[in-house]
Structure formats: C-alpha cells, structure tokens
C-alpha cells in the first residue's frame, strides 16, 4: 500500500520541503489549542501538541491572509459560498485563519447532472443464464440454453460466428457450417429456452480456433437475437417470417441482441461469456451496460437505511441513486452528487474523471410485473427499461441493472 501512494506523497513532499522555506515547526506560530482542551501532555516519546498538523502542506506561512481566505471560496450554482472556520475548534490569537485549507482550489469543470428517463424494453435475455450444453443425441454437438423475460411474444434467432452489420443485421461468417436457428416464444417472465436435442451445433465444422477467438470486428462466436413486435407492422411490409434470418431490423421491430464469446474449459465443456447486449428500439441501437453497485442501491424500493452497503458512500445515509459516468459506479445519492461535482471531478470509487452524473429514479414497479419478476429471478424488471438522458446519443438505463449507451452512428459499423 505504501507503493501505491507514491505520486501524491512525492507531490506533497516537494511542497513541504521547498528550498528557502523555513522548516515546519517555525511556520506554525500560534499555539494550537486542542478542541476541548484535552490535549495530551507532551510526555516522553510524544510529539509536541502545539503543532497545526492539519495544514502543513498547504499553508507555508508565506501566503498573505487575504489570499488565504480567498481560497476558501467555493463557487456553487453561480453563487459564492464561503467556508468559514468553525470558530469553536481552533481559535487562534492573532486572527490567522486556522481552518484547514484542505485542497488547493482546482479548476472545477462543472459536470452535467442528468436524470434518467425510461424506455420500454420488451425482451431480455438474462446473460448469467446463457449456457452451452452437450447435445446427448448428437455427439460433439452443443445446445444453447438461457432464461429470459418477455412482455410480448416473439422469436429467437441463434447464430454462430456471425457478424453484426447495419441496423443490427447478422450474417454468418461461415454459412456452410450451420443454419441459423429460429424459434418462437410466448409472452411471460422467467421463461427458459433450450434448443431441442438433436439440433445441436457441431463446433468441429467451424474450426475450433476460429470459434474460440474473441469478438473482433463485430464478429462474435455466439449471437442471439430476440425480436418482438410491439405494434403491428405497416401493411406494405413483407412479413418477418419471409425475410432471411438476420436481416436488418426495421424500426417497428423491437429486439435484443446478445453477443458472446466461447471458451473451452479443461473438461472439454464450453463456457459462454456475454460480451455485449444491444437493444434495438424504434430504429435506434443501444448498448446495454452494467451499472456497478446497483444491486446495493435503493432502487427497487428495498432500501431500509440500515445496510451500510446500500447507502450513498458520501453521506452514508441516503440510498444510492446516482451513477457516475463513464465508469458506471452507482455510489451516491443525488444530493451528495450535486455537492461532489463542485469539489472534485473524480469518481469517489475509482477516481476516474467524471463526465456525467446520471440520476436514476425508478418508480416502484406495478404489483403485477414486480411480483412476477421477483419470483422468477432476482434480475426481474426486464420490461422496465429505464432511462434516456439528454438529447440523444447518450446514455440510457435499463432493466434496472444496466444502462444503455446508444452507439453514435446507429449501425456501429465503420
């Protein structure tokens, strides 16, 4: 841990040891009165109690008091606020401001704070449930299985080694190796899908090396596209069934695409890892991204204020409802987030520079959906995709476990 500290310490060290500055003890002229006057007597082996230890790196005795004060100004919402020292704590003779100037003022970029708005998603593959199972009726072949929620009937298409193109179209890289599969599903939460035995896919036909390669250039070893029709198609459109599997999606189709890589394990079984989930809604493509810490948030209405892990990391009192972007740490309540952005531009959890703060208020779910979803899976809520902030091309939230990032070019293909 000592090593991880180096950069900052180097910095403060330089400050405190600047040539020409007197050594610290002489810099702190006023005797420091401990709060409550209970300073320990300087016994043997104790440092003298009259050290203003708290401001040594920032106050070198050379800054005139007026400037010192000015560093205590904070601009907030266009208003100037002043941080005055708590007079009861460190009263000083001589009127030197004793309040610690904790950080030198830094240029603060005001970060956008936005509220999430909601979009409706009709189908959600639960990515943790995606598996490749051995096809018992077909040696060397594998079957796809997963659980999903759907608030409308629709169809599932499964592709191996397929490339994503414009409007979420999917084309097999090796069309000779297999025929994409299609099957129908009904509306319902917590459904299970398992490919029929005997229809498994032989991986040997692909050349294992190619199949196990990670997702590159929009080619993924396993791609599942789930479509629903939230409204009836325009009369002049050909029926979906007549089009080839993987055809570009029109804007009246609603879809979720799950892209995964395949890894071989020691026991010759295969493990699937979901890399990306994409939503196609009203002709726009969104990438679904997980929010870290949302399991511990107050979202879902189960915050009772007692579990430490669920509270805002700053006030430790209010439920978390604000996600830091781009790092996606849901770690604060909206009030603290508003304060934070005038103090620092870094995420409290990972110190990534903050570009945006996304507040996610999820209305309590209706009893019908919420109840059913909760009984079917902890993820629930497939139907309540959340969010949309700002104008466009930005960030959305869904599920409510993740946010959606809309690809800037719609097709995502260069």
């Amino acid at each position: 841990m000592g090593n991880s500290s180096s950069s900052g310490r180097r910095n403060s060290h330089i400050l405190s040891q600047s040539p020409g500055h007197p050594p610290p003890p002489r810099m702190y002229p006023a005797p420091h009165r401990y709060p409550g006057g209970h300073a320990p007597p300087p016994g043997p082996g104790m440092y003298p109690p009259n050290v203003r230890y708290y401001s040594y790196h920032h106050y070198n005795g050379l800054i005139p008091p007026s400037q010192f004060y000015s560093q205590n100004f904070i601009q907030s919402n266009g208003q100037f606020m002043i941080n005055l020292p708590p007079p009861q704590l460190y009263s000083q003779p001589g009127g030197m401001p004793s309040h610690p100037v904790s950080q030198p003022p830094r240029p603060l970029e005001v970060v956008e704070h936005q509220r999430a708005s909601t979009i409706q998603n009709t189908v959600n593959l639960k990515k943790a449930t995606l598996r490749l199972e051995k096809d018992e009726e077909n040696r060397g072949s594998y079957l796809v299985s997963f659980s999903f929620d759907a608030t409308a009937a629709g169809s599932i298409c499964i592709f191996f080694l397929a490339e994503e193109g414009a409007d979420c179209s999917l084309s097999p890289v090796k069309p000779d190796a297999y025929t994409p599969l299609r099957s129908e599903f009904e509306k319902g939460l917590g459904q299970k899908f398992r490919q029929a035995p005997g229809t498994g896919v032989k991986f040997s036909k692909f050349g294992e090396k190619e199949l196990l390669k990670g997702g590159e250039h929009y080619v993924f070893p396993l791609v599942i596209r789930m479509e629903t029709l939230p409204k009836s198609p325009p009369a002049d459109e050909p029926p979906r069934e007549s089009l080839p599997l993987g055809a570009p999606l029109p804007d009246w189709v609603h879809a979720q695409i799950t892209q995964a890589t395949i890894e071989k394990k020691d026991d010759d079984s295969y493990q699937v890892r979901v890399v990306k989930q994409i939503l196609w809604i009203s002709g726009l493509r969104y990438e679904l991204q997980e929010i870290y810490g949302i399991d511990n948030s107050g979202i879902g209405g189960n915050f009772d204020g007692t579990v430490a892990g669920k509270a805002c990391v700053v006030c430790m009192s209010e439920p978390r409802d604000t996600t830091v972007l781009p790092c996606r740490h849901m770690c604060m309540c909206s009030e603290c987030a508003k304060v934070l952005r005038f103090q620092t531009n870094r995420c409290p959890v990972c110190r990534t520079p903050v570009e945006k703060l996304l507040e996610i208020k999820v209305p309590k779910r209706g009893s019908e959906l919420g109840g059913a979803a909760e009984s079917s899976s902890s993820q629930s809520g497939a139907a309540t995709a959340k969010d949309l902030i700002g104008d466009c091309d930005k960030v959305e939230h869904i599920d409510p476990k993740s946010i959606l990032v809309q690809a800037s070019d719609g097709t995502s293909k260069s």
Partner: protein
Amino acid sequence: MSAATANTNLPRRIIKETQRLLSEPAPGISASPSEENLRYFNVMILGPSQSPYEGGVFKLELFLPEEYPMAAPKVRFLTKIYHPNIDKLGRICLDILKDKWSPALQIRTVLLSIQALLSAPNPDDPLAENIAKHWKTNEQEAVETAREWTRLYASGA
C-alpha cells in the same frame, strides 16, 4: 457557537462511522471520539507484526474538518516513530490524506492505510529526509533504530 452546538450538527455519516468504529473496531486499531468534540478522535494503532514497530502502541490524533468527507481527515502521530514517511512532528506522508482522498474513504480505511504504511515504509518517497536516507543506505541499521524507538517510545506505557 459552543462545542455542544457543533456536536448536535454532526453529520449522520460521522455518527455512523463513529458507532461502527466503536462496535466493530478494525484489528489492531482503536479510535474513540473526544467527548468535547466529536470530530476529534484519539487513535491507537498497534505496530504490525513482522515490522520494526511490532509490539509498539502508537497514539495518533485524527480530526474531521468541516468539509469532511469532501476533504480528508487530518491525522498525525503523537507517539514518536522512526519511519521514512513520518516526520518529526508526527505528520504522515500518505497520498490518500492529500490529493488521492476520496469521499468513499472513511476513518477506518485511513487508519488501515496508516497501519499498512508501518508495514511497508517507502523511503523513495520520503517525508523525513534523514530517516529515508538512513533507510536507503543502511536498511538493517535503520530498521534497528525503528525497533529501538518503538521500545523507547511506544512500549504502551
């Protein structure tokens, strides 16, 4: 404003942290608030085993400034200690107390970091120049001095 008024305005976070520090103290660390000022803590850290500070009981003071948790706590050793990152006034050179502070850190995590700093002195980034030099030129002897200081000043008396 009296101390009592200040204490009644104590943010909930500080109250919660204090409660947890008292009810579930971290191993080898104790921190208790002063009665007069609940932002001032008396801290004791046991020297980590397999460090030159093993067997020592080190007293520190910790103060939560008004801006806390947006600003770091102010911490200082009261017990004399021979360590390249702690100067003769007990001030500690630790990045999380400076520019690497984050409001997600807490009193507990700060004290654990200080405990870790005792286990891993970093003479390449010194606060106490002489001690760091000693550490780099003759580590064995420096460690021995640290042991000696621990016996002399931090024997828990």
